[in-house]
Each structure stands twice: as C-alpha cells, then as structure tokens.
C-alpha cells in the first residue's frame, strides 16, 4: 500500500459514504450538499489518478454549476425545509437491483484486476489534453458543441410558456378571433 492507495481508499470511502447519504437522506437540500461532498471526493480521486484537468473541470462544472442548478430546482419546486416523509417509494426492488448492479460490477472488476499494481502515467495536464482534443478528437468536440447549443435552445423553449404552445397559455383568456391564425400555427409546430 503506497500513499496513493491510501488516498484513493480514503477518498473512495468518502465518496461512497456521501453517495449513500444522497440516496437515503430525508432532507432535499442536504441531499444536494452531500452530492457536493461526493463530487469533491471524486475530484480528489481524479487528482490522485493524475488527471489534473478533469479534476478541475469536475470542480468547476459539477460542484460549481450542476449542483447549483439542482439546488435552484429544489427551491423553485417549493421543496419543504426539513425532513419530508414522502421522498421514497417503498422499495425492496430498488435495493435488489441497485445492490445487484453495484456488487455485480464490483465482483467483475475485482476479478479482472485482483490486487495488481500499475504505474501512474504522465499527468493529464491541460496542455496534453488540449493537444489530444484538438488533434485527435476535433470532430466529437465540434459535435458536442452543437449538442450543447441544441440543449440550451431546448431548455429555453421548454421553460418559456409562450413558445411552441398554443396561444392561451399566455394569460388564460380564450383566444379571440384575430389570434386564431397565430394559435393554430403554434399548435401545429
């Protein structure tokens, strides 16, 4: 056991422990905060595994943006402060399938890698990863940017009630005669 192993073990324990809390806690907001701990521990894992850029992107995007979005959603859906009892459905099938997936994958991976040891590769710094992305992976990168743009447009269209939906959602009044053409084209879109 080297220092890296001990660090990986400790960070993995933190990640799995806070992951358990994310899926079992009765407080909505606390679930988001445990998710921060879990994602932060994973970022530490990435650092130990010499993936510097991925670790910092994880901190920036996951901890910085995704969790903040999730907490926004918790607030916008008027989640109760404090414990709520109706978060779970009775679920031994969930425990069965989830436990089966987790333990099955663990057994598979332990069987594949045993207790063998590998040397850590060169650090995945921004320079090296940038070279790779912009030399070998340019096409997926560009496709991904188009996908991000379409996801952005999709989110905007979904969350604006006056786009892509027939007229009267605007203010609830029945559509007057002069609005009919507009409402119809909206309905067919």
């Amino acid at each position: 056991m080297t220092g890296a192993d001990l660090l990986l073990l400790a960070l993995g324990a933190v990640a799995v422990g806070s992951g358990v809390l994310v899926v079992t806690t009765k407080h909505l907001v606390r679930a988001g905060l445990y998710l921060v701990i879990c994602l932060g521990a994973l970022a530490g894992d990435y650092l130990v595994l010499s993936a510097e850029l991925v670790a910092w992107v994880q901190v920036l995007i996951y901890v910085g943006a995704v969790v903040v979005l999730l907490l926004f959603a918790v607030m916008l859906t008027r989640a109760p402060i404090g414990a709520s009892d109706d978060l779970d459905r009775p679920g031994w099938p969930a425990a069965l399938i989830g436990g089966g997936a987790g333990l099955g994958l663990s057994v598979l991976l332990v069987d594949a890698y045993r207790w063998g040891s590998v040397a850590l590769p060169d650090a995945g710094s921004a320079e090296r990863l940038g070279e790779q992305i912009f030399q070998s992976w340019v096409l997926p990168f560009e496709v991904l940017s188009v996908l991000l743009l379409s996801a952005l447009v999709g989110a905007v269209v979904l969350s604006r009630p006056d786009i892509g939906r027939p007229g009267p959602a605007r203010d609830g009044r029945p559509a007057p005669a002069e609005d009919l053409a507009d409402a119809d084209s909206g309905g067919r879109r």
Partner: protein
Amino acid sequence: MRPVIPYVTAALLFGLGVYGVLRRRNAVLVLMAVELMLNAVNLILVTADTTARAVLPHSGQVFALFVIVLAAAEIGVGLAIVLQLYRLRATVAVDDVPLTEPARPADAREPAAAGRDREAGR
C-alpha cells in the same frame, strides 16, 4: 497504484445511483442519482486511462471531459422538464406523472382546439 480501489468505488457509486433512481419519488432527487451514475462512469474512464495502454494517450480523460459536458447538457434539459412538470401539475413526484394521454385534454390545449373547431365550422 492499485486500480482495483477506484474501480470498486465506481462500481459501488453506480449501484447507489441505480438504487436512487429506482427508489426516489422526487424528480430532483432522481436527477441527483443520475449524476451519481454519470460520475461513476467518469471514474471508470479516468481509471482505465491509467490501466489500459491506448494508441492515443489520455483517451480516457478526454472521454471523461466529454461525459462531463453531456452531463451538463442533460441537467439543463432535465431541470427544464422538471420545472415545466411542476408548473403544469404542481408536483414533482415521478409516480404521479400519467404515462397515458389523459381522457380530458389538458387545459393548455383546450381553447386552441376549440378555435380550430370554430374555424373548421365557419
């Protein structure tokens, strides 16, 4: 470095994510469990980058970056859908969502349909 440690961590996190998706009723918590699963996959990719000798160096880390971007897009669209669901039904419990078309047309569509009928009758 023993690769089995992060691999097992990732497997357990994936199992936790599956459990959370199946167990939770609140749509926001379901999205959080999906994030757990995506992160487990990322950890697998980054670890595989150290164990597998690929033709292109650091492929696993590049894939992990791509998955992070996909997760960001997913969470944006997912939250827009959840908020729209909350606006329409005033609930985010996923098992309250009707999977079939309701017998009565949804309120938002009624007047437009009536308008079309009126226009057709003219």
